[in-house]
């Protein structure tokens, strides 16, 4: 295992300390329990977005803490959900009274932890709502699985909902919008290589020299299937078609209703992409793939979208939601309306995403 780390137990702590030293103008770091908050949190009268998840996906989520995006982020151990005490303490630290929206990627561990945290925050009188991100089309059905995983769509949800919070939307409005962005997002990823968690010390899965893994998540877990390596255009076509040809997807989502003080279930359907749609596109590196290769992918994606009369209205190309040093990429498309595009363009100032300021 070759990494720029020190003691394995200290990896997350030291990365957080590094962030605190580098970005004192943007964020503050708390180590026990671990969370990261905006330097100016709580921000009066603004809804606070809190997300979190296993570490190893940087810049997600800590790199998105700052003006116009997250108020707080809770990093777990590498590839392991954070714990409810982190989310609870983070929620308390960022709540201005306008309430907290918990952005939850759909993994059993994350869901269970955020559910507990939501109940704890509610118990303390914090107005709290939750939104689930489940955009990974590699998972086909929601009936016989834990449902689609939350992957690249999370970045889009955090940016747009963050801008809405900054613009003064109230908690119910931010939650409704976030849910809308979430179900408008679809992603698909692939790996050229595996990755190695410091604790395991060896690659999570083995890939042959001429094999690639299609339909991976973001935790070094094996994907949907394995195939011989092919070229960038073929890989891009495969990922894009999985997304663009994906039919309507229906799932039952549990979210916390602060008025009822309880969980409510909603059945939500994502409509398939259609000619005429405008989308935000994310071409994302899994960590070890350099930006140069992503442009080759983007080139093909742009051609495919054009041929289907889908307009890429905005795009983000880089490493935004990663699996440590894994080589590979994912594509996310989010169907966007005017409101979403306006909020996408709104100023954001975080370590990993910055514009308009």
């Amino acid at each position, binding site marked *: 295992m070759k990494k720029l780390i020190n003691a394995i137990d200290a990896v997350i702590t030291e990365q957080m300390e590094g962030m605190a030293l580098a970005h004192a103008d943007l964020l503050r770091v708390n180590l026990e329990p671990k969370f990261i908050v905006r330097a100016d949190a709580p921000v009066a009268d603004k809804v606070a977005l809190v997300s979190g998840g296993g570490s190893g996906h940087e810049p997600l989520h800590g790199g998105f803490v700052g003006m116009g995006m997250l108020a707080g982020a809770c990093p777990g151990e590498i590839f392991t959900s954070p714990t*409810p005490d982190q989310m609870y303490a983070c929620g308390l630290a960022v709540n201005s009274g306008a309430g907290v929206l918990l952005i939850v990627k759909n993994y059993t*561990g994350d869901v269970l932890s955020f559910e507990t945290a939501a109940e704890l925050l509610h118990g303390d009188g914090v107005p709290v709502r939750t939104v689930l991100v489940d955009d990974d089309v*590699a998972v086909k059905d929601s009936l016989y699985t834990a449902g689609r*995983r939350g992957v690249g769509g999370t970045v889009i949800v955090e940016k747009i909902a963050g801008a809405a919070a900054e613009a003064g939307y109230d908690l119910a409005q931010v939650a409704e919008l976030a849910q809308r962005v979430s179900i408008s997002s679809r992603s698909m990823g692939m790996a050229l290589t595996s990755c190695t968690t410091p604790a395991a010390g060896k690659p999570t899965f083995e890939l042959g020299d001429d094999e690639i893994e299609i339909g991976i998540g973001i935790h070094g877990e*094996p994907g949907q299937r394995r195939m011989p390596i092919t070229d960038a255009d073929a890989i891009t076509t495969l990922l894009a078609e999985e997304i663009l040809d994906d039919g309507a997807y229906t799932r039952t989502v549990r979210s916390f209703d602060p008025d009822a003080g309880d969980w409510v279930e909603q059945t939500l359907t994502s409509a398939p992409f259609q000619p005429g749609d405008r989308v935000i596109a994310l071409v994302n590196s899994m960590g070890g793939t350099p930006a140069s290769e992503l442009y080759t992918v983007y080139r093909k994606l742009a051609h495919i979208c054009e041929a289907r009369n889908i307009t890429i209205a905005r795009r983000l190309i880089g490493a935004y939601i990663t699996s440590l040093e894994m080589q590979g990429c994912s594509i996310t498309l989010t169907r966007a309306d005017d409101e979403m595009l306006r909020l996408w363009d709104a100023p954001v100032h975080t370590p990993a995403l910055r514009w308009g300021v």
Partner: protein
Amino acid sequence: MITATIVEAWLQRTAAVLDENKSYLTDLDAAIGDADHGVNIARGFGAVVQKLAAQPGQSLGALFKTAGMTLMSTVGGASGMLYGNFFLKAAGVAGDRHALTDAELLAVLEAGRDGIIQRGRAEPGDKTMIDAWTPALAALRASLEAGQPPAAALDACVAAAEEGMRATIPLQARKGRASYLGERSIGHQDPGATSTYLILRALAETLATASDEM
């Protein structure tokens, strides 16, 4: 009577056994999950043992609550939340008792198991830890109700847990991370069912040692 001392000994033995089986559990999780089950659960029970050592003389309710809260805040991931819930619900039933009869032990374990189901909403056959818990506690209940001595009842419980664990191999996962693999999850033993088996085995062994010593 199962005293608080015995329960602490159980948790200590569990911590030791999980630590020994850390790589084994993590390897199982690497096959159909994300390769962290062993490391996380061993860290969690290690922390429980440390916490309990610092807070001696608690009631069983308090002791289980400490265990549950500690697991929730140190394990991370699905199993941390589920085992955490197990002990929180167990705590509710144990209350301020300092010892449990065999029947009470059964009630405590069943409440814990129900807590796992309540949070995780898994059903038998979903290829989760529930596939070890459910047959194990059914066997325990049946043996006790048949009037078998506690040692034999617990042996039956462990045997059923082991069988339930092995029976996860041919199953396709429908809950948790392994469900993403679809048919590729078939042929692998569920890591959570395996840790459940180890936890119950540690309980049986602890009780056996304790009664030897009496």
